[in-house]
């Protein structure tokens, strides 16, 4: 800041011209003492959410973008309400991950909202997906389920809620791209067994329980193989009614915090 101010206006060519007398040089040196003392003190860290949330990005990848391997999902760019709901679910036991629960245990609703807003607001380039390991027939089956669903089994298409581009929809439907295959399989399985829950009525549990194990593998393989588009923002809130009724944040959540 000091540097900018000194250099504002005209360029400084001659330092002696700026401090022509011995006294002014001495005064400047005296002025420097506290500045240098401050600089030599304990390091200051940026007063930003990004700095505060380095706790998240060790696992979720630089700035929350996730890697194209492993298990941890990307969180950057997902809809803010979706992320906020997941933070509440972890803290309040509707999703099960001991590490996540411990991290969030003593954080307020207000801070969780700030955290969700921070990651939702990020707009990051993504690495290309891993080449799919699944056979073409499985990928075709996955794509068909994602894009068309299966009316005979009352399975809606993923795109019906998660957006034609699968980047989710504001304010609370997540995008499905940029997620590792293991993570996708883990989530669908957790919904089938009740380990992962959402606010009632839990529409994803309803969908997941209609999927056969081969469906879960096919859908996850195909989704994990798709690149994240350059514009990964969630679609605007849909005016069409969703194929299923999904729960929203209750007005009083648990009444605990």
């Amino acid at each position, binding site marked *: 800041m000091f540097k900018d101010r000194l250099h504002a206006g005209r360029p400084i060519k001659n330092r002696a011209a700026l401090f022509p007398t011995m006294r002014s040089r001495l005064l400047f040196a005296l002025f420097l003492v506290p500045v240098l003392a401050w600089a030599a003190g*304990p390091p200051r860290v940026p007063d930003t959410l990004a700095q505060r949330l380095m*706790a998240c990005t*060790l696992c979720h990848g630089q700035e929350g973008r996730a890697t194209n391997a492993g298990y941890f999902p990307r969180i950057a760019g997902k809809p803010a309400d979706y992320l906020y709901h997941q933070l509440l679910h972890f*803290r309040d036991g509707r999703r099960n991950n001991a590490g996540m629960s411990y991290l969030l245990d*003593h954080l307020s609703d207000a801070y969780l909202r700030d955290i969700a807003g921070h990651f939702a607001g990020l707009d990051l380039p993504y690495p290309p997906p891993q080449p799919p390991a699944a056979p073409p027939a499985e990928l075709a089956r996955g794509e068909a389920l994602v894009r068309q669903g299966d009316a005979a089994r009352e399975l809606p298409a993923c795109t019906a809620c998660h957006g034609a581009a699968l980047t989710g929809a504001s304010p609370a439907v997540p995008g499905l791209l940029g997620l590792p295959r293991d993570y996708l399989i883990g989530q669908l399985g957790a919904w089938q067994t009740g380990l992962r829950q959402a606010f009632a009525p839990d529409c994803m549990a309803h969908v997941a329980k209609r999927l056969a194990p081969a469906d879960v593998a096919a859908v996850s393989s195909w989704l994990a193989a798709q690149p994240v588009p350059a514009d990964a923002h969630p679609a605007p809130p849909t005016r069409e009614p969703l194929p299923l009724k999904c729960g929203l944040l209750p007005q009083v959540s648990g009444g605990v915090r």
Partner: protein
Amino acid sequence: MRFTPLRAALAVLLLACGVLAGAVWSELRSEALPDAAAWAPATPEQVARGAYLARAGNCMACHTARGGAAYAGGRSIATPFGAIVAGNLTPDPQTGLGRWSLEAFRRALHEGRSRDGHLLYPAFPYTHTTLMPDADVADLHAYLRSLPAVQQANRPHSLRFPYNTQSALAVWRLMHFEPGRFQPDPAQPAEWNRGAYLVNGPAHCAACHSERNALGGANGSYGASAMPDGRWLAPSLRDPQQAGVQPWAIDDIVALLQQGTAKSASVMGPMAEVVFHGTQHLRNEDLRAMAVYLQAVPVQPAPALEFKAADASQKALGEQLYQRHCVDCHGAQGQGAAGAYPPLAGNRAVTMALPVNAVQAILSGGFAPATAGHPQPYGMPPFRTLLRDTEVAALASFIRQSWGNQAGAVSSLDVQRLR
């Protein structure tokens, strides 16, 4: 019959057994109290006072399951004797305290007996609530009665034999429990006495911050002790090298209890829960009183363990890991960053003789509690998934033996036990 030493010893032994049996029998003998007839109407002020005491005691922390209805019970507490499940305190007549008269509630807090007369496990800290005067008990009862009734049946405890028997509990009580109200010390100022009451009564600090014997009996003396699940260590409040605040200014002690952070120290683990749900909601004058009392707790250094130096290769690995993962926040000299990251040089959680909390912090990371006075704490990532046991041990050893820190090396086995 001839008198022999053997016979005399047998007689004494029999007599002792008889006395013990009598004492146990008298502990077990207790009557059920009748259903609450009609509760005396409570004033809003009384309910507010009770709510405040419930905050001071952080009753909710144990009596609420994760994500469950407040005070409806269901949280399971792992202890060395098995798991104890906290009960439903809401006024539901079938599953909660709906049929508890004030007298039954008072007897539970003062004597550790349930409404039907059976003995309660001291995970419910009646060893502390016994100090509460009748008026405070009535206020707390009024508050719990004002809660929405939640029908949620209590899950049974799963304690091992013999700890699951009432007789074992009776023996424990004979050894470790003395009912009695708080008696102020006339030689001390009123503020100290208020602090003594809060700390030893409703806030039950020494339920964790106290040495415990093999039977789980606490001596209430603020020494260090493992938490019941063994995952964290409640540091000694007598030892300024641990959590003793004798050299601290009163304002700093208040800030720690109110904001969760002070003097570049932060609360973590179970104490973060205490601050988040409990102490941050207490009035300034009460926090001051607690600070005055805690500051005056007599100093008694914890016994030192034999110093074990890390070997060169362990320390080299630790330093390498520190440079890769820790240095950006905690600094090249372990000096931390003001207002954000605690220093590690001279950090009491780092240098405690037992490395439990240091290792736990590396494994679990965490945030200081988000309090009204400190709403957006900086976080530390959990390294559980990234680092192996040997690496965590090396990193902990390096931190414990750098920048003037002089604490024993950590082994992979220490880490494995806590993972």
